[in-house]
């Protein structure tokens, strides 16, 4: 096994990023990255004592001839008619054959030839079919093989070094530039003066394709020129383990970068939230304001105050007040004006969801527009849910219902005391009224009742005084009750409104923007996989 501790961790991060990418709708990109992660696992399982190097190129440039020249014998048939090589051929050192069995099987290489060159023991050379002939199957074979190969030597000739198709491959291989070599074959066809010119032109084009310091060998398989040097350079190449580990790390980084790019993260620049924090806060506030307008805290306060007053009246009201309260209950007036619980539950009748949903939607669209166009639609789909309106309604329902359950209309001993005093005052009032009534009836009829004589306190008759006192006391008690109940009501209303406002605001902030939060969390995971760690 290769020691790839840091790589293991990095691959684990890539796997996490794959799941994160899937959760935000980047299915295709995730599938690709997962395949890379799996490939890295497979390749590192085969060990790294030998690295696989492929000879690739267009038809007729002499891939097989170069291999034959390296070997000093005919390994791969090189012929004049095109294309020649139909399937990859592996050329390996005899002692390594056994340990390479699994790897070659994974590469689907069926033909294997062995050699005794000790210097080339650590490299397994593959002769690949062409990438540009009329046989599409050849190209398909190369396309599936190339990603599994540790290093590539690309063979060109003076005639065929600038085809569009070859450049497309080079651009794709650019992340693996460190493990790329170029062989300019058929150098014998070039006049000595022209060689430097062609190599310089080739180098310029490779740099343009993203390969900053290309290694170019000038050889001729026919004359054998440059072959020995190529063989030495291949043998002297870095340690196989280093090559394999570097290749896998490059694969991993490329896959992580692709995920990051799709998620709208610039891997070199680090993670920026899709929606700038200030803008997000603004939209959250808008949504909260919209939800609060629906809940209608001032209206709720009125209802609470009314309910407190109502309860105070039923306990401490005068006889008349109690009668009115009873009437209110029976006519349903109380339910309309003094039932905070029902008022809260009916929030839906107090405005449209648009005020809450529009800012949420704006946040999602603005967030998605910070991602590249190919991902935009899918991320937006992941952001929004078709049931957004119903979900949000449930969120507000839950918050209001919780507040309604906590809602307790308080009682006060004072009210009962006032109620008792009101009863006394009422009794006095009735007594005084009855007394006066009797006096009036007796006096009016002109019959002298004898002992029925009204006591007088100063100039005022006592019954009248009692009546006035009862009315005054009842009024004062009523006023005190109202004052107290109003004070309590305002306090309770403020507390209840405050609670509802907080609950709704919290729920909206948490739940209405939950998908955006999840997407941002997924992007954090992806950014972690793509982060340029300290090397």
């Amino acid at each position, binding site marked *: 096994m290769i020691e790839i501790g840091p790589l293991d961790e990095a691959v684990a991060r890539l796997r996490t990023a794959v799941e994160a990418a899937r959760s935000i709708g980047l299915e295709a990109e995730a599938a690709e990255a997962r395949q890379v992660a799996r490939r890295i696992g497979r390749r590192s399982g085969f060990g790294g004592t030998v690295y696989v190097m492929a000879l690739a190129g267009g038809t007729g440039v002499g891939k097989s001839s170069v291999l034959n020249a390296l070997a000093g014998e005919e390994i791969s048939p090189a012929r*004049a008619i095109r294309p020649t090589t139909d399937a990859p051929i592996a050329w390996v050192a005899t002692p390594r054959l056994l340990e390479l069995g699994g790897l070659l099987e994974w590469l689907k290489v069926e033909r294997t030839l062995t050699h005794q060159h000790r210097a080339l023991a650590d490299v397994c050379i593959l002769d690949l079919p062409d990438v*540009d002939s009329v046989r599409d199957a050849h190209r398909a074979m190369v396309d599936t093989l190339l990603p599994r190969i540790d290093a590539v030597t690309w063979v060109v000739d003076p005639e065929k*070094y600038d085809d569009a198709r070859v450049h497309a491959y080079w651009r794709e291989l650019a992340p693996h530039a460190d493990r790329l070599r170029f062989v300019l074959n058929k150098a014998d066809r*070039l006049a000595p003066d022209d060689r430097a010119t062609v190599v310089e032109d080739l180098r310029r084009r490779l740099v343009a394709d993203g390969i900053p310091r290309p290694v170019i060998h000038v050889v001729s398989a026919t004359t054998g020129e440059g072959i020995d040097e190529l063989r030495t350079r291949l043998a002297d190449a870095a340690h196989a383990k280093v090559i394999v580990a570097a290749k896998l790390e490059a694969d991993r980084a490329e896959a992580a970068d692709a995920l990051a790019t799709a998620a709208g993260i610039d891997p070199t620049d680090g993670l920026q939230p899709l929606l700038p924090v200030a803008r997000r806060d603004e939209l959250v506030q808008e949504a909260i304001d919209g939800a609060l307008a629906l809940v209608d805290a001032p209206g709720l306060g009125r209802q609470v105050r009314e309910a407190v007053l109502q309860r105070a009246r039923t306990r401490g009201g005068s006889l008349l007040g109690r009668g009115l309260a009873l009437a209110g209950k029976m006519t349903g007036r109380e339910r309309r004006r003094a039932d905070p619980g029902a008022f809260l539950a009916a929030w839906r009748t*107090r405005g449209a969801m648009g005020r809450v949903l*529009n800012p949420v939607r704006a946040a999602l669209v603005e967030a998605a527009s910070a991602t590249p166009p190919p991902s935009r*639609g899918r991320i937006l789909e992941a952001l929004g849910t078709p049931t957004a309106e119903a979900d949000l309604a449930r969120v507000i329902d839950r918050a209001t219902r919780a507040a309604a359950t906590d809602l307790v209309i308080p009682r006060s001993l004072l009210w009962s005391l006032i109620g008792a005093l009101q009863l006394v005052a009422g009794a006095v009032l009735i007594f005084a009224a009855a007394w006066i009534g009797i006096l009036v009836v007796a006096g009016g009829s002109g019959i002298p009742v004898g002992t029925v004589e009204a006591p007088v306190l100063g100039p005022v008759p006592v019954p009248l005084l009692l009546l006035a006192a009862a009315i005054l006391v009842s009024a004062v008690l009523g006023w005190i009750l109202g004052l107290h109940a109003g004070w309590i009501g305002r306090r309770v209303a403020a507390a209840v409104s405050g609670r509802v406002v907080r609950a709704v605001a919290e729920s909206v902030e948490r739940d209405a923007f939950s998908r955006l939060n999840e997407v941002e969390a997924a992007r954090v995971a992806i950014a972690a996989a793509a982060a340029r760690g300290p090397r």
Partner: protein
Amino acid sequence: MDDDARQSAGTPGAAEALERLARGLRSRVATAPGEERRTRADNLRRHVEEYLLPRAADLDAPLLVVLLGSTGSGKSSLLNALVGARVSPSGVLRPTTRQPIAVGHREDLGGRIGAVAERSGLELRADDHARRGLVLVDAPDFDSVEAENRERALGLLEVADLVIFVTTATRYADQVPWEVLGRARARGVPMLAVLNRLPADAVDREAVIGDFRALLERGKVDELAVAGGGGLEVVAVDEGRLRPDIDALDPEAVAPVAAALDALVASAEERRSVARRGLAAALRGVPESIEAVAGQVDEEQRAVGELRDAAHRSYAHSRTALSEELGRGTFLRAEVLRQWQDFIGAGQVARFLAEGIGRIAATIRSLFVPGPPAPATEVREAAFADLVALAIHHADSAAQRTATAWSADRYGAAALAEDEALWRASVGLPAELHAGLEAWAEGIANRIRELGTQRKGLAQAASLGVNVVGTSAVLAVFVHTGGLTGAEVGITAATAVVNQKLLEALFGEANVSAFVGRAREDLAAILDRAWDGERDRYGRALGSTGDPALARELRDAAREAARAVDA
């Protein structure tokens, strides 16, 4: 050769059909979605405009001979050999021919050749010793890394009268040249092949030539022989047979090519015959080539039709949902309604509404408690803001539903990528709706003023102000008692009741519903207009992609052009 005279005067039946075809292709080039489709149409357009039309008009015009081949195959060396001078730079650097060159006699370089040269960026080289009646063109590499070179080379293939196809022992089985040969076969251009850089080994040499011939046969390219029948001539040139002083292939090695060209120079009959055969084959090939374009148009039409339907469905659905929610009247914020209710329940409005003794009481009360000032403008604006929020919500939903459906489709996704605003209601919609609603309120106010001159009750309303009555009418459109049961009676219904009372007092019971009904219709018209505008964004985003008339016209014209050959 009896019909030569007629033929050389042109094929008039074809000319009209070709003109139509060119028009159709021009409009296709302007509207095709994507680079590949545009290029395909543009190459065909060149074929029609720069080859078929001029050739059909004049069979005796000079022949355009195009040297076509891969990068590094030796086209320029061949041209130099054929001309006998260093006219085109050949060299070790690829791609060599950046500015394609046309060589011909001074008098042969005008007319069609001049037009082609301008379009393809050809550099014209007059050569007094050139073969008369022929213009040789050294085309850029069709497999070059330079996209412009590729495009120019494929364009030249479309306008050629004769193609000299140059390849090498290394290249002859490359895929890109065979794609080019496939197109050459489809348009039936007469052809010669040069197989360059053959290996010295005699066995290898014969094997390569044999393999190349077999490929030509399999690809049915050998039917393009200049002589007509008898197989395509393959001129074999060995590696290293060069004449370095003029950067040319050895003239002896390419003598068969020169001989074929000289035969054409010697006989006008021969030239005309080649031209006629090329033209006839090209005309016959037109329906098949056009079918490739028309088929794409068909496919676009189907896809685009589905996209349009999706947009229509989404917007119709959301418009209905908006109407329903408007009908329920619960979209207004409670604060707004409460403000209005408080206003109507107090002050001069209450006085206005009360009757008999109550009126006196209200008058006295209003002396002490003046009542709140009329919040007519605030309430109306708040109601409009609520309505706009509601409309945006539904317009956003429709946009989202449309865009989601579109993103699953190729053209839909392309349109969305071009204009991300399609994911939501247009930015200008709130402003547009506000303006529309203001105008609507203004219309209501005007009608109240009109009625005021006719009805006494409304004259009284003058004391309340048109603004207050107008707001009342606006609210009456939104909130009404219908459909609300006792249990649900809330602020909405309560406001509706007092509001209704006020309006009935002003207009008379019978007139209120007519007045409000008309206002409601006007509002629906405003929303309909806004919705049409929103939906039309999607139609515009698709442009004229997939025009069914275009596909029909292209096919008709192509069939007619092909029929003209047989006639």
